[in-house]
């Protein structure tokens, strides 16, 4: 028998063991599309809310450079406020999102809020002097402090700020590093911190440490990738957009400033129209690349696809002065791909071949089954070939040898083939020509 269960995310079980409540709470944190800051706030909430660990206050230090800096301090500023908040938060039906919202409002309150009191607290992690709170982070150990007034290791400024005798320092450790530290206390209830509290708080510390570590790592990776991509796109766009814009700007200025004849006015407008069309083409090509990859792959009849392409009038114009030969095995298996994308990819390769072939030259298209359940379309031209210096960059975006090319054709072809689970192979000999093979998976069974 099989029984289906929902994830217990929105439920609140006051009778469940605290460990379960905490885990449920934290798992809710991670499915919310919150920022790192908000999720850390939620973790502090887990430490202070009744459905979590239930400490009165939680303070967060994060590592910046090589020191611990005070960032957030969550908790009611006065005992009276603590009582009224607990009443609100223990109302049945109050969920995770409400609690985090409530806490965010509490944090944003300048007057009477706690966070500003720890703004200036800053402890170097490389200091030789042992000092609390940073000692816990340096040793990667949970430290339980009682009788803070008489404890010489507790920093005087910190003692003044926290104002309690008993607190718990929990380092936020990840596999590699210390990411920060959380300090919790029971300033209002005065309840002693017990062993189960310490276990639960430690669990929070481990989760938070690894969460911060992975978030920062991910952000770094995304930033680097974005930056690299942005750089390439920037250079490409500069060229693709600045030339038309210079033309449009210049001829528009003439229209605005000079006394032009009717004939010249019309000429300028026609030039501007043409350049606008060029800008549109840039956007269309980029758009086409970004839209790729929707829908499932389907079996494709390559012979019919290529017959269709060869019948296109636009292709006929490109093929002027060149011969096209199409050879296709009669028992050709069906290829797997996205119909329109695959056709567009083949057309791209065919266009390139026709442009490369000299006047009077020939382009040969061959379809044949290959090993390992593949089927290929090969397009060969007898043009000048790809210069050796750029062969290893031919799939790089914005790389082009054509005067008006954008360098996106082969990028598109490769994306289409990758997404369909196929591949592209190119062989080129200078002075003799180029063969491009699109290798598709077939739909056949084993």
């Amino acid at each position, binding site marked *: 028998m099989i029984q289906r269960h929902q994830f217990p995310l929105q439920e609140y079980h006051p009778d469940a063991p605290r460990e379960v409540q905490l885990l449920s709470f934290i798992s809710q944190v991670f499915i919310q599309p919150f920022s790192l800051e908000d999720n850390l706030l939620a973790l502090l909430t887990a430490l202070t809310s009744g459905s979590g660990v239930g400490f009165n206050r939680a303070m967060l230090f994060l590592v910046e450079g090589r020191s611990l800096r005070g960032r957030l301090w969550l908790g009611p500023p006065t005992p009276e406020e603590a009582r009224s908040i607990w009443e609100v938060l223990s109302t049945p039906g109050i969920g995770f999102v409400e609690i985090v919202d409530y806490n965010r409002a509490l944090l944003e309150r300048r007057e009477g809020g706690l966070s500003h009191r720890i703004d200036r607290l800053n402890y170097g992690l490389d200091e030789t002097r042992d000092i609390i709170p940073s000692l816990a982070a340096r040793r990667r150990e949970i430290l339980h402090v009682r009788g803070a007034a008489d404890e010489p290791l507790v920093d005087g400024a910190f003692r003044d700020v926290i104002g309690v005798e008993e607190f718990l320092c929990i380092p936020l450790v990840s596999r590699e590093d210390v990411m920060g530290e959380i300090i919790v206390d029971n300033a209002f209830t005065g309840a002693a911190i017990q062993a189960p509290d310490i276990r639960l708080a430690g669990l929070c510390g481990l989760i938070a440490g690894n969460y911060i570590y992975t978030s920062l790592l991910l952000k770094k990776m995304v930033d680097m990738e974005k930056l690299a991509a942005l750089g390439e796109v920037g*250079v490409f766009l*500069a*060229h693709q*957009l*600045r*030339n038309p*814009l*210079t*033309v*449009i*700007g*210049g*001829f528009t*200025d*003439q229209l605005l400033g*000079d006394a032009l004849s009717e004939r010249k006015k019309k000429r300028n407008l026609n*030039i501007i129209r*043409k*350049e606008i069309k060029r800008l549109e083409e840039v956007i269309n090509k980029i758009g086409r690349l970004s839209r790729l990859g929707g829908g499932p792959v389907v079996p494709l009849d390559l012979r019919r696809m290529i017959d269709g392409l060869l019948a296109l009038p636009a292709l006929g114009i490109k093929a002027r002065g060149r011969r096209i030969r199409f050879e296709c095995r009669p028992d050709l298996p069906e290829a797997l791909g996205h119909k329109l994308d695959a056709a567009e990819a083949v057309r791209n390769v065919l266009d390139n071949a026709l442009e490369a072939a000299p006047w009077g030259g020939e382009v040969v298209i061959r379809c044949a089954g290959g090993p390992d359940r593949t089927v290929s379309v090969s397009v060969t031209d007898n043009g000048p070939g790809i210069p050796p210096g750029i062969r290893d960059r031919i799939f790089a975006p914005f790389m082009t040898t054509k*005067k008006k090319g954008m360098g996106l054709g082969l990028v598109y072809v490769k994306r289409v083939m990758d997404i369909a689970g196929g591949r592209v192979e190119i062989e080129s000999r200078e002075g003799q020509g180029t063969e491009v093979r699109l290798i598709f998976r077939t739909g056949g069974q084993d």
Partner: protein
Amino acid sequence: MKAKPRILIVEDERTLCLLYREELEKEGYEVTTVLDAASALEALEKSDFDLIVSDIRLPGANGLDFIRSVMERWKTVPVIINTAYESYKQDFATWAADEYVVKSGSLEELKKKIRALLEKRHVAA
């Protein structure tokens, strides 16, 4: 009457050649436009120019090599690099040029730099 200053434009886009010719002729210059480096060298061999405006990306030649060789052979003729790419500014080879103007929707900067360079040349002569 003073002879018109002669400017050579090296630019592979015909529409831009047309625009530059019209706009610079209006400024009182005599303008010759060519579409590639080889034709530019031919033009320079045949007649004297007071200033060269050249793109960097040129068909069939490395524009930077072209500009370098022009500056070596015609040392006194000022060269303005006029390109869509800002990034070439980081290439030392472009530093030798007298000016670097990035293509934009307005020709004012290009015109201003041409005027300034021609004045400087006139004073020096």
